[in-house]
């Protein structure tokens, strides 16, 4: 087993290789834990929004989408970015504000970008990426390609106007776009039921006459299959779909938040559905990996993350002049 270093290979690996999916989930978790450690050590200037617990959604989306599809994603985007193919160095470099980062340390944790694997600059404004994905789908439609676009956003984002306007527009224009809602049960420090009067976000698709689906987002194959089906419909001219992934955010909202507002037992209930533990078990049951190999993945990933941290810590901060680059197009 070895980890592909090249972004495109990293991405391709997820397509049918279930071991790669497992590996990538383990990598996302390890990276996020490392980010929290670095934050706690005071090495992260600014903020972080971890996707611990949501790894299967990220991997599922990336496994289903093509490299030529366009993805918009949020500040809670480390997992999606890694799954799409960005490397740990791309991410850690950006999060730590070093030249090695995805955009050279100009963006930080909330602003990752990698056009080669379809990732537009990630969005720090809630909901903003949703119409933008519809626009990427418009490009495919106008050009007559069979590419599609995906918007990944949270449950809280479905209360903002951009969500509503984007789904309506995409429906009216029959755009090839898949709206993936990561329903992790919380928006910041508020449980979804305090801000959102429906149990399933998927219900909201009816307001736009769109198909929708509620999906167990804790299984990467399941997540991938749902997104793949929606993408297939989109590519075939069948228009947009809203896919609601039920998932859970293990960490707090950001930075040092320890999520004291969670009801007792909730975390534990969700941890029983842990995507990595369960998927690993399944792969072992199915004979795809041995128990030892599971351990080996963890070791390999930890080494790779440790190496990435080292690379990044020895990468310089961006030169002052970098702040003047790329303001306007040449």
């Amino acid at each position, binding site marked *: 087993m070895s980890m592909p270093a090249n972004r495109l290979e990293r991405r391709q690996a997820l397509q049918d290789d279930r071991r790669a999916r497992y590996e990538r989930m383990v990598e996302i978790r390890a990276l996020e834990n490392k980010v929290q450690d670095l934050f706690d050590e005071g090495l992260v200037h600014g903020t972080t929004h971890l996707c611990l617990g949501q790894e299967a959604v990220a991997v599922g989306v990336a496994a289903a989408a093509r490299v030529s599809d366009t993805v918009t994603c949020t500040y809670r985007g480390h997992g999606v970015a890694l799954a799409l193919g960005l490397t740990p160095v791309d991410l850690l470099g950006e999060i730590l504000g070093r030249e090695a980062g995805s955009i050279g340390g100009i963006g930080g944790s909330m602003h990752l*970008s990698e056009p080669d694997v379809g990732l537009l600059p990630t969005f720090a404004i809630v909901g903003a990426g949703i119409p*933008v994905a519809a*626009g990427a789908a418009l490009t495919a439609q*106008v050009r007559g390609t069979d590419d599609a676009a995906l918007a990944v956003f949270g449950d809280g984002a479905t209360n903002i106007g951009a969500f509503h*306007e*984007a789904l*309506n527009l995409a429906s009216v224009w029959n755009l090839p776009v898949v709206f993936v809602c990561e329903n992790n049960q919380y928006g910041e420090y508020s449980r979804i039921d305090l801000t959102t009067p429906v149990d399933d976000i998927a219900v909201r698709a009816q307001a736009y006459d769109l198909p929708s689906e509620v999906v167990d987002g804790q299984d990467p194959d399941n997540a991938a299959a749902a997104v793949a089906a929606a993408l297939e419909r989109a590519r075939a001219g069948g228009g947009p779909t809203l896919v609601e992934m039920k998932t859970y955010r293990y960490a707090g909202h950001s930075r040092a938040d320890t999520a004291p507002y969670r009801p007792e037992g909730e975390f534990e209930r969700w941890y029983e559905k842990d995507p990595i533990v369960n998927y690993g078990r399944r792969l072992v049951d199915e004979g795809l990996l041995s128990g030892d190999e599971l351990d080996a993945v963890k070791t390999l990933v930890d080494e790779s993350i440790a190496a990435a941290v080292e690379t990044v810590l020895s990468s310089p901060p961006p030169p002052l002049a970098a702040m003047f680059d790329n*303001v306007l197009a040449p």
Partner: protein
Amino acid sequence: MPRMRMNQAISAAIADEMRADPDVIVLGEDVAVAEGPFKTSAGLLDEFGPLRVRDTPISEMGFLGAAVGAAATGLRPVVEIMFVEFLGVALDQLSTEGAKFHYLSGGRVTVPLTVRASVGAGLGFGTQHSQTLEGWVMGTPGLKLAVASGPATAYGLMRAAIRDDSPTVVLEPRRLYAQRENVTTGPEGVIPLGTARQVVGGDDATIVALGSTVGTAAQAEAAASWSAEVIDLQSLQPWDRDMVYESVARTGRLVTVEENPLFGGWGADIVAAVAADLFGELEGPPLRITAPDVPVPFGKELEERYMPSSDYIDEQVAGLLQTGRVPPPWWEAEKGSP
């Protein structure tokens, strides 16, 4: 050189760019079948078809955001915001998303988006449909901003904006849509963003005008006892420091003529730059001729008075030249009176 109305010039500019580049598309409320509420997309649906010319739902955030996404993935969308005030429901996509994509992608994503919006008073559309609001867009690194002052500049700036790889806003003074003039079409008609234009030569002062005030300022100058170089700024971001500085260095006096309220108006930036960089060369105080600091009123007489008239410009400039001081605006006298 065809003679056209400003709305025809805009339609022509978009059509010319659509012919030249299949990636140019047009989006907005009633821009396709109805050819635009102000007929600024006449003939486009017929010639380019419904894939490229699209009516949208009433969803400015949605379709401006979609345009950002389309631009980021290769198209060159031209979006109509019918009245500039409607940016108030969509500004995020322009200023916080589109304007920052190039920066936030390390220069690898470009956003060749054009946002057109009608602006200004004079047609009785009332308080929520009569402002110019340059201030909402100014001060956003990553955006360009141009303002049309008639058919020819509308044509030239629009083509430049559509070709530009940065997101660009073109403001169109609504009351000029019906104005006619000869327009140089074709490549020679394109006006590079960031360049100003001398409208009239003159010596006593430099008058910097923008959009609707260009014609009014030129008219004032033509009838006045004083003489001034009238400059149509054309682009606000970036603006043509060279032309303005050169003129002020020669005339020694700067006047801006703005349709907006005094506070927060674009003229302050021009004045502040000139006051700093040409301090020693100014022979008198810079003068800003603006609308008063009030919402745009509806009543016809009030609305007309709200906008700087050519008589008022004449009075103000004459006052400046005679006294060497900034004359009080007309409303100082009016405000107290019953």
